[in-house]
């Protein structure tokens, strides 16, 4: 750090020259800026996404403060629209997706026995683009108003007539930038998973989390082009007067809904499948038995991925598609509950008869299963067309998708944080604080969203910035607000826990959870090169089978001492000396430079064409520098 501060400001050319010369010798902040190490990139993803989580959370608290009592006056209608739009957009694109990407980055190479991802610089590019897109979109708060048409951005709310400011422009340009980040990372992880597996790591020996990452990545590369086109259509309409969503010219705003939900429903599974993968890793470890019905869990994940393409119009029952279309999409939506149900029964059966080690990651996983069941079942209620007619645009829908995205995805992601934290920091998160975090969050969550279910049944519409008293909504809204602040408290407990644990002198023992998969064979924190020697995999749950054999009754019997020697045989023989010969990819500035070009283009499209030219030049400098520099020393 000190060395970086001593430096005079560098010209770009000089910095690039030094980048070549100095190779891996960067220190402090520079070592993070040029890094291509998947663990560092994963860490940056996690910290950034968590910062956005706090922002989105504050937006949620503002919403709840406004709605706590009838005729609330915390926000006016305009500000309220901006806040709920940015809350949704932030939580989907800047929190849950990048938190999932955090785990892809951190875990995938370790779980398949690789030294890094297939394209380390592309990986750095993904992160920087994500950061650029997130900041770009939030800048709109400072430049005259954030987006205000909802995270779904329905036409014609987004047209110039109804949203004359620049908020919507920031929204679609920001989403385009974020889409590039998601696609780049999805391509990278598909190639990594298909091509970089250690010897013996056949597809059906891969941990379920790796499978779910693969399915999610395929969903991303096929779903994002659709929303990319939708956002381009919106861009042409708003910036250059095209007619895609203009009824006066014969266009139909429904086209947007089709484009958005054809992307949007796979997106729902993009959000939940990684969390399902995490839970599928946590449950076997803490039940100390293999995942029940591994092939069924894998195939149901794949099936969910496929079926997610045939259900989008269930978001559009009330738009007048006709009863044939509604029935067809109703049936497909009911059917997609089947593979989801299969997973839930497999998770329960994994716990059944296990010797349960009830630690924080398992608390969050069980919380995930229970809350996701409620979310899933309310989803089945929405699939019934007549029932949905009643629920459309009420708080029941709000409760439903928070039930799956918070009660589901976020609980699963927190399970992952508690589970894998020691691997990268060498320290355990404190168990007591972890359980307090869980209980506060669980109680707060239910206190927030179960009242919303009832509010929806009572007919309270979504997206209203205030309501009159005396409609039977007052007490329930107040409860929901109290619940939201309880969740906020639980997040403070989590932050405290992270700080205390990181400062603690107490080091995590090796293989602290008696793990089953390759990552737990590594020293903690994991060294830059991951595996001193690329492992050879002999079975599913390879590490478990190295540690245990089964007796006649099928009970596990230890062959090597658990905890002390989680490392595979041979790991110690090579010691630390081995890594000097390991070829690692070189750090690079170019992904960052290329990424910086994108928001400049974005600002240019809003304000001035000259900036577009500047942005394109920066982007091209980044890309050409990237293409021409050698990938490794």
């Amino acid at each position, binding site marked *: 750090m000190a060395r970086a501060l001593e430096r005079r400001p560098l010209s770009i050319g000089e910095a690039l020259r030094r980048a070549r010369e100095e190779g891996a010798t960067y220190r402090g902040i520079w070592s993070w800026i040029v890094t291509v190490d998947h663990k560092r990139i994963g860490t940056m993803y996690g910290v950034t996404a968590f910062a956005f989580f706090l922002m989105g959370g504050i937006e949620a608290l503002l919403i709840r403060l406004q709605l706590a009592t009838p005729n609330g006056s915390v926000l006016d209608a305009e500000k309220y629209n901006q806040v709920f739009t940015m809350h949704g957009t932030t939580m989907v694109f800047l929190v849950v997706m990048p938190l999932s990407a955090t785990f892809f980055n951190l875990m995938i190479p370790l779980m398949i026995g690789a030294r890094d991802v297939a394209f380390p610089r592309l990986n750095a590019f993904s992160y920087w683009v994500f950061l650029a897109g997130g900041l770009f979109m939030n800048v709109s708060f400072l430049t005259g108003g954030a987006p205000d048409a909802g995270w779904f951005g329905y036409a014609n709310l987004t047209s110039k007539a109804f949203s004359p400011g620049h908020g919507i422009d920031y929204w679609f340009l920001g989403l385009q930038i974020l889409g590039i980040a998601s696609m780049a990372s999805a391509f990278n992880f598909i190639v990594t998973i298909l091509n970089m597996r250690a010897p013996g790591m056949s597809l059906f020996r891969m941990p379920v989390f790796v499978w779910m990452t693969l399915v999610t990545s395929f969903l991303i590369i096929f779903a994002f082009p*659709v929303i990319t*086109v939708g956002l381009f259509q919106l861009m042409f309409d708003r910036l250059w007067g*095209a007619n895609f969503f203009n009824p006066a010219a014969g266009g139909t705003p429904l086209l947007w809904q089709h484009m958005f939900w054809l992307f949007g429903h796979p997106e729902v599974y993009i959000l939940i499948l990684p969390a399902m993968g995490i839970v599928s890793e946590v449950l076997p470890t803490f039940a100390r038995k293999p995942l029940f019905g591994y092939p069924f869990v894998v195939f149901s994940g794949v099936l969910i991925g496929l079926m997610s393409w045939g259900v989008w119009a269930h978001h559009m029952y009330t738009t007048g598609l006709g009863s044939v279309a509604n029935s067809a999409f109703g049936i497909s939506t009911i059917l997609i509950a089947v593979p989801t149900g299969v997973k839930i029964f497999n998770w329960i059966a994994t716990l059944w008869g296990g010797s349960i080690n009830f630690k924080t990651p398992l608390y969050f996983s069980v919380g995930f299963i229970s809350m996701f069941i409620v979310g899933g079942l309310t989803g089945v209620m929405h699939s019934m067309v007549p029932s949905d007619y009643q629920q459309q645009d009420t708080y029941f829908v709000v409760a439903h998708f928070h039930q799956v995205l918070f009660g589901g995805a976020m609980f699963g992601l927190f399970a992952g944080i508690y589970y894998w934290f020691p691997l990268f920091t060498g320290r355990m998160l404190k168990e007591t604080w972890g359980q307090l975090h869980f209980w506060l969050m669980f109680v707060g969550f239910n206190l927030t969203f179960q009242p919303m279910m009832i509010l929806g049944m009572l007919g309270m519409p979504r997206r209203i910035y205030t309501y009159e008293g005396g409609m039977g909504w007052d007490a329930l809204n107040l409860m929901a607000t109290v619940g939201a602040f309880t969740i906020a408290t639980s997040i403070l407990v989590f932050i405290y826990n992270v700080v205390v644990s990181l400062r603690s002198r107490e080091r995590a023992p090796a293989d602290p959870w008696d793990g089953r998969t390759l990552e737990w064979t590594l020293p903690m924190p994991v060294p830059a090169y991951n595996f001193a020697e690329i492992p050879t995999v002999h079975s599913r749950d390879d590490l478990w089978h190295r540690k245990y054999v089964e007796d006649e009754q099928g009970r596990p019997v230890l062959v090597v001492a658990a905890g002390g020697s989680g490392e595979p045989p041979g790991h110690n023989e090579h010691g630390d000396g081995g890594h000097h010969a390991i070829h690692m990819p070189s750090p690079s500035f170019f992904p960052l430079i290329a990424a910086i070009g994108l928001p400049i283009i974005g600002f240019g499209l809003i304000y001035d064409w000259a900036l577009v030219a500047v942005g394109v030049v920066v982007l091209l400098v980044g890309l050409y520098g990237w293409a021409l520099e050698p990938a490794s020393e």
Partner: protein
Amino acid sequence: MQHAQALEPALETSTGLDNRKLLMWLFLASECLFFGSLIAAYMLYRDRSVVGPYPGDLFDIPFTSVSSFVLLMSSLSMVLALAAIQRGDQRGLRIWLLCTALLGITFLSGQAFEFTEFYREGLSLDTNLFGTTFFVLTGFHGAHVSVGVLILLSLFVMALRGRLTPEKSLNVELAGLYWHFVDVAWVVIFTVVYLVTPT
């Protein structure tokens, strides 16, 4: 030349397919959905413009057929470029890379001419649904061709400087995959936009 030193021998991948080639195939698969969405929007709005000019008033099928033929021929020269580098024929590589790029530029010029012509005859992005969908669909295809031309010219410069050795034939192969995809996309667009009953 200083970067032309052989990198470490390519690590064997689990599928046997080179990482970069797999990446390109995945990217092209994803592009199918991109063009699919644009084409779907075009088809949805076909014959729904409430004011003219309509496709039948503007299309010059013989002209566009010729420029389509030029683009398709560029796929042939692309294949010849790849064959040249694979057998170590540097001169052939340069000739065919340049030829492919020039054919691409010819196609783009044709498109620029067509756009200008249509604009003169009263069709712009905001005129009607036909203008909106036509310019956006064919414009994005043109943008893809432009990126392809940029890649081809970059490869051509590398070849001139002797940096495209036969071991680097994958670079040309990947550019070729992209180029062929853009051609195939045009075949679909040309059929859907120009040939299927323009009114």
